[in-house]
């Protein structure tokens, strides 16, 4: 089978050479975190060996270099998501912090009985911050429920109404793999005057995301899920919205004047970036985006679609496997959650691991969805640009052995 992305790029990822339990590493846990190409790690070393300084505060060369690297990373992110200005990009430590920042800062202007709307398939990081402010401010927290096939029924959109203050939804579900129609959602939401937050943690690593096209008011994601380093995340926000929000974390570098009992804050985006920022992370994220753009987001998307189709096809041949999420593969990305009859997901993962296959088992930080689906947990595999047909073949061979290990006829 011909592949869209040449397996040669696997050489850019030294960890893929690793033997796991004596076997070739088949890394299918990309929805949790991704592996790093050499260029990202090299960018980090280069930063520390040639340019390291505390940015924004100094008139000396290293500090100036660090500042300019940090600012360049913002410009890169701005262009990557097609934002209007680099001032619309705030760096955080991960997608989770971005969502906490939003919930805190936005809630200051929310009023009793305002409605917050989430999808039942949201990640805990996109539920808990809204749950907390809903309790604190007596807001009403509502959920959009999905169909059996993991898509949103038309009738659920009626939950977006004049009282809806904010809707926050993942563009791609990290369990179902569903790609939700966020452009349509933001259109309906904006008609009703609601703010739209898009959790792009699972989408942006795998497809072109254009904040203008989908008209997101806010967009959040983590670098570590898109080849970048851990410890850095992004919050995009429309400038006029960010301008009117109070800061979240307080501290050095986000102020104008500090008095013993008072303070005035710096401009956006600085007012949201307290303390010493993670320049290393910014540099690594920029290198990751450069790499993704070199390969091409369209190619990555097509490559993963090919892998997903092949994997689903092969998995459907195995009678004791149940797959969750849309079976119309046009509606999903490269994430497949499933269960093996009679076998607990953790045992499945452990057995797969013994063949070198990295999968994930559990609730995937989506307990409300699990409960809604009536399952305790599932196994999940998820693809990225460096996966290939051979990975899928090894996975399929391995999964066929799982039941035998636990004494069930295959």
């Amino acid at each position, binding site marked *: 089978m011909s592949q869209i992305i040449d397996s040669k790029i696997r050489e850019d990822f030294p960890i893929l050479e690793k033997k796991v339990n004596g076997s070739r590493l088949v890394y299918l846990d990309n929805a949790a975190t991704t592996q790093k190409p050499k260029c990202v790690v090299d960018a980090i070393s280069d930063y520390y060996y040639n340019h390291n300084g505390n940015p924004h505060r100094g008139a000396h060369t290293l500090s100036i270099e660090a500042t300019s690297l940090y600012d360049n990373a913002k410009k890169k992110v701005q262009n990557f998501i097609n934002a209007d200005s680099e001032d619309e990009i705030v760096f955080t430590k991960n997608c989770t912090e971005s969502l906490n920042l939003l919930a805190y800062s936005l809630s200051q202007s929310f009023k009793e009985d305002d409605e917050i709307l989430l999808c039942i398939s949201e990640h805990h990081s996109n539920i808990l911050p809204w749950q907390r402010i809903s309790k604190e401010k007596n807001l009403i927290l509502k959920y959009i429920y999905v169909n059996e096939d993991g898509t949103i029924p038309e009738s659920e959109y009626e939950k977006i109404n004049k009282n809806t203050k904010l809707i926050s939804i993942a563009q791609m579900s990290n369990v179902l793999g569903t790609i939700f129609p966020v452009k349509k959602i933001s259109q309906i939401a904006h008609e009703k005057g609601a703010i739209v937050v898009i959790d792009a943690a699972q989408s942006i690593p795998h497809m072109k995301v254009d904040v203008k096209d989908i008209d997101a008011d806010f967009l959040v994601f983590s670098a570590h899920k898109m080849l970048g380093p851990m410890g850095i995340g992004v919050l995009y926000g429309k400038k006029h919205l960010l301008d009117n929000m109070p800061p979240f974390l307080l501290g050095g570098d986000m102020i104008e004047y500090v008095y013993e009992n008072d303070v005035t804050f710096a401009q956006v985006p600085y007012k949201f970036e307290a303390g010493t920022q993670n320049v290393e992370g910014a540099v690594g994220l920029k290198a990751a985006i450069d790499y993704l753009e070199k390969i091409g987001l369209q190619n990555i998307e097509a490559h993963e679609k090919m892998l997903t189709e092949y994997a689903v096809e092969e998995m459907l041949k195995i009678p004791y496997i149940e797959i969750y999420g849309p079976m119309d593969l046009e509606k999903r990305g490269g994430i497949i959650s499933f269960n093996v009859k009679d076998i607990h997901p*953790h045992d499945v993962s452990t057995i797969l691991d013994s063949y070198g296959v990295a999968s994930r088992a*559990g609730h995937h930080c989506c307990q409300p969805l699990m409960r809604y689906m009536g399952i305790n947990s599932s196994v999940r595999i998820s693809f990225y640009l460096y996966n290939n047909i051979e990975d899928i073949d090894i996975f399929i061979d391995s999964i066929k052995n799982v039941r035998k290990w*636990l004494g069930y006829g295959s």
Partner: protein
Amino acid sequence: MDLNQIYTQLIMEHNKNTHNKRALINPTLIEHGHNPSCGDDITLNLIEKDGIIVDASFTGSGCAISQASTSIMIDLIKGKKVSEAMELAEIFIKMIKKEIDDDSELEKLEDAVAFENISNMPARVKCAVLPWHTLEEALKK
């Protein structure tokens, strides 16, 4: 990691065999134990009389390791004194932490020794230990 050391015949049998997985009429002690991160969730039922565990059973769900560990534990503690059961729990937990050198200690665990190698699988340790922690909680009351 050698799967044969983990999914042994004994563990497989206890995972599939449900003789200890049942309700118990008039239990004197009921304790709920869970590993939220993996979804293992068991309820341990005990009938204690004059300091002796005269019957025990469990309900709930979880992975093969947690299910088998619970079943093996129940076989082991039935008919034992509460103090003996407590000692066994202590030995089991120490075994998993690799804190036991003395083989005669291990022998007391009988079939439960099957979990000795689980310490090589940090991600599954919690599953094996769950019933024993739950037992400790129950007996402390």
